[in-house]
């Protein structure tokens, strides 16, 4: 599974990290620090939930 974060759309809600702290890291101001990530095995469900928490719909999940 791969996640892609549209950094132009991210406005720092930080909900991805609140929902899936093992997948999403934030920068110092609370914006998503990830652009692309291959999700480690076992964290797929978290990654998906974190994407589903983004109010901007900035995160895409590819299976």
């Amino acid at each position, binding site marked *: 599974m791969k996640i892609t974060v549209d950094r132009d*759309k991210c*406005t*720092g*809600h*930080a*909900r991805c990290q*609140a929902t899936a702290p093992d997948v999403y890291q*934030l920068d*110092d*101001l*609370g914006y998503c620090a990830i652009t692309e990530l291959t999700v480690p095995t076992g964290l797929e469900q978290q990654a998906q*939930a974190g994407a*589903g*928490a*983004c*109010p*901007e*719909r900035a995160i895409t999940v590819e299976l």
Partner: protein
Amino acid sequence: VTSTAQSTGSGAAPEALRYEDINIPVSGPGEHFAIYDALRAQGSAHRATVHDRDTLVVVSGIDGIRSCMQDPATFSNRAVAVDEPNPSYKWIPEMIDPPLHTKWRHLLGPFFSPGAVQRLTPRVHEVINEIIDDVIGRGQCDYVADVALRFPNTVFMEMFGLPVSDAAQFQDWETAILHSPPTAGDDLSPLRRAAAMREVMDYFSDLVAQRRAHPREDILSTALGFSIDGERVSDADLLGFCLLMFMAGLDTVAAQLSYSTYHLALHPGDRRRLAAEPALWPSAIEEFLRYYAFVSPGRKATRDTEVAGCPVEAGQMVFLPLASANRDEAEFPEPDQVKIDRENNRHLAFGAGPHRCLGSHLARRELMIGLTAWHQRIPDYQIDPAVAITEHGRQVGLNNLPLTWDARS
């Protein structure tokens, strides 16, 4: 998707929707949200009037509301109240657009980042416990005045290095400015609103001058040193920043605490479940944010465009009630139900796009600490049935929340 006009009950020709009928000065709790629900059932965007002359577009669906907020080039923040399309004031950073807005947000971000909020957390715990110490022995309180308003006000005053003794005055100003009915009314509220705004501006102008002369270790003193594009930020802009902090930082958390506690007072089953499963508090708080979203921003179109199929002309205001986005059945299954374990709750209570609430991390922390501390110490309480609860318009919120509990336990 269509634009709609509301018809009158008399069977006469349909009459245009009026902003004054959406933003009512005094109502029962939740009535504003029900108005949005009824509008959304008719369509995703609606033409309306304000002051019986200016036209605006009310957007009801989450897609339309989100896309307006994500497109600041088309929907400017230079006016944010739909009944004031040409404001004489400029709250910073709310009422400025990118690219200048982006520079301000960069300067302010460190004060409101998750890390900064973490550093404030011990003091936030102390503040709420001091407030609960004051009321717990009484067995009753008006939760709005005695707890919900005092708590974020105290945190704010300390961040700004202001004497907490000024908090009551702040509260009077907030009520006059943020809770007044639409300015077309023939009562005294527009005058009170203007007078309160002048007093707030005087207060913060004095504060800017004081901190300029004697800087301290607070947020405003740091802001005095801000530079944008090589130019020192002006005192006028610093005043605009103080005004926004005042408008956005105090009343909002109070309103959210009050609606959350109102819900929990009426739903002891949810209260019992949270006591048994405290890990549900974060999702419960998100659900209260979704269901009781009280901020209704406006934006000003910079060009002719359309929203949800409804034409918008350059210079026209669009009204974006976040509560309506958050109750859109296209996004949220059973949106009229409060589900404290709701999943995939990507509500817009803190807005969307570059103006996403700067204080959202602090607000969430205050909600978490404020609600859990109260429920640990006063787990059982009721609404006093002898007192009517009312809701105000503009920035919607409860005027009062009379609670009673057994003070001997």
